[in-house]
């Protein structure tokens, strides 16, 4: 089964990190990605640019609204995701707990709706 691990964290804290801490974090993420691949669990994943670089879009009553920034004003923002293959939720949760993002933010684990 496929699960999406969505990594939420306070992006202002990540941006304020000292360069060497940022590098260490990146190295930990790379190691995590490699371990997912080596275990045959990796399907995909990406880091996202900060929310200020994006937009939200919605169409209501025929009107298209385009707004700056994220959909909801929350303390933690979606900063990246992994798509993994896992036998069940238990296994997916274990992978999520190993993600370096879990130590600074929150991971949401969601099964992918199989079509």
């Amino acid at each position: 089964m496929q699960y999406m691990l969505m990594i939420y964290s306070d992006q202002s804290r990540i941006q304020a990190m000292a360069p060497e801490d940022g590098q260490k974090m990146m190295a930990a993420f790379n190691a995590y990605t490699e371990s997912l691949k080596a275990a045959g669990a990796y399907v995909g994943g990406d880091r996202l640019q900060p929310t200020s670089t994006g937009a939200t879009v919605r169409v209501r009553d025929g009107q298209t609204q385009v707004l700056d920034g994220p959909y909801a004003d929350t303390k933690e923002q979606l900063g990246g995701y992994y798509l993994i293959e896992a036998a069940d939720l238990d296994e997916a949760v274990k992978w999520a707990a190993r993600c370096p993002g879990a130590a600074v933010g929150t991971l949401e684990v969601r099964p992918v709706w199989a079509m």
Partner: protein
Amino acid sequence: MTPAHTAAAQAARSGYGKLLAYLAAQTRDLAEAEDALADAFAKALDAWPRTGVPASPEAWLLTAARNRWLDGLRRKRVRSDARDHLTLALDEAQAQAETHHDIPDQRLRLIFACAHPAIAPPARAPMILQTVLGFDAKAIASAFLVAPAAMAQRLVRAKAKIRDAGIPFAIPERADLAERLDAALDAVYTVFTRGWGDPLGADPESRGLAEEAIWLGRLIAQVLPDEPEPKGLLALMLHAHARRAARRDLGGRFVPLDAQDVSLWDRPMLHEAEALIHQAAAAGRPARFQLEAAIQSAHAARAFTGQADWAAVVILYDGLVAMTGSVVAAINRAVALSRSEGPAQGLAALDAVAEDPRLADYQPYWAARADLLARTGDKAAAAAAYDRAIGLEFDPALRDFLQERRAGLG
């Protein structure tokens, strides 16, 4: 918090497992016993601030739980023979508690029911945490890295199994004792190892799982004084726990065993562990936990002689591998071998188990491999192995340590 609230909370902490064990042993229905007790505790919190704490809080709670249960039976129109049976059992429980002025401690029976071979192994330790120690399902789910809903379902299923399969709340007969005791000790050790990852008690919600496991270990060793393995398990846990203060430095960073400051090891706890190992050995029946305790004892030798006894560790792991066939023991044996004979010998021993598919996501294998490769001077292979270990690590402090080691390869 008012004194009444504190008293009720204390009764919950100290009396919960005892009351539940007693009710469940009489009725064999854990889930109903839990509901009845939860209701009794809620009533106590409501009543005690007004009426004062009763002379015997446990007897009060038992009566309240019994009344609630009997009410429920009447409302649910339970078949009359089943109702009679339960009413009788509850009346008997009440009468016994009143005549003895105390509730008999049947928690060991509850442990044996929770760790019965018919209960799925992953549910055994969580069941003990919930029923004997009164942990809530959310805390248990976190300790086992499982979604709360999945854990709750597992616990409900296990309780239904105990009721429907008629799993006894009893200390097993001699013929069954060895096998059943293994399962119970294994569950207690699982509780202990789940507490191992949080040496600083960083999570304010978590009551120390390690301390709770040691408490369970003491209970089993006391009730079964002729059995050596409970003493072995208790010694193993005490040895590991004695090093608690040395496992992190002042900055919260991970300190590996051979770099720990032995003056921070808890001497009285080490001495207690040693005494238990000797008592257990007198029975002349060595087994898994006694061997593991002896291995910890050989490590602890550094506190007394300045040096760990690596040769003894290798021999003990040989015994453990032969006894259990455990790949974890084989990895630890390879590490010990590298200390007594050199990194190349250790690496060769690791290679012997490298084909095991379970190692793909087993962090300690990759951390051990990385360290041995680094010590043989193979930096590139060591870096790759460190990356696997870093990517598989759950504990941020240990992840930092591994990243520093990797950076130190040069």
